[in-house]
């Protein structure tokens, strides 16, 4: 109960969230993850310019199965945040605001991110 007696229900695990809501939460979570990845990114850059050994080490960082899995996850987080961000920018200029379009674009982003990650990994 809130202070004035009105009922309060904030159990996020029980509230049914439409796909746009899930996307919004993931946008926030992916942002926080990316924030924590900035120092490793800078470390990678520093390693890549330090020497030929460092360069090779940096560009071989993601070799091997576990390296590839980690790279996939990193790309997924980045692309998810980027694509859902673009979706928000489009909504800012009134593109895809109605419920149907919003649901469609939400699903599109949700699926496009991991697919693009796989594509990028294959290309690289």
């Amino acid at each position: 109960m809130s202070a004035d007696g009105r009922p309060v229900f904030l159990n996020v695990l029980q509230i049914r969230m439409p796909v746009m809501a899930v996307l919004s939460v993931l946008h926030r979570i992916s942002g926080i993850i990316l924030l924590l990845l900035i120092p490793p990114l800078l470390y990678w850059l520093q390693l890549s310019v330090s020497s030929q050994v460092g360069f090779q080490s940096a560009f071989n960082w993601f070799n091997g199965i576990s390296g590839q899995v980690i790279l996939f996850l990193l790309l997924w987080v980045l692309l998810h945040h980027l694509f859902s961000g673009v979706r928000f920018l489009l909504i800012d200029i009134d593109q895809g605001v109605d419920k149907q379009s919003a649901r469609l674009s939400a699903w599109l982003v949700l699926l496009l991110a991991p697919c693009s990650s796989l594509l990028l990994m294959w290309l690289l």
Partner: protein
Amino acid sequence: MSRKASGLKAWIIQRITSLLVAAGVLLFALKLLASPPEGVMQWRAWLSMSGITVLVLLVLFALLWHAWIGMRDVFIDYVHAQSWRLTLLSLLAVYLAACALWGLFIMLGVFVQG
């Protein structure tokens, strides 16, 4: 801009920095796909081109500013005790400032030495 419009200012900067970072990510991906560096000398040569050095730093600073605004929103939404919020925001500021300086020195080293 009046004090009452500070939310609008943050909103606009968030959009602008997001576009800069998106452009940076795109550039980096295109570079790796179209002409990946074959060794550290090539890599440093590309990074030390003045346009590229400026671009990398610009994208980095845009990223850090974007992260500040985003994370500040998260703290405002979930951290209600002012003492905690102030502490977390201060730590975030130091974290981002350190990243900015670190990035600056990495790029300065590359730019000066080539």
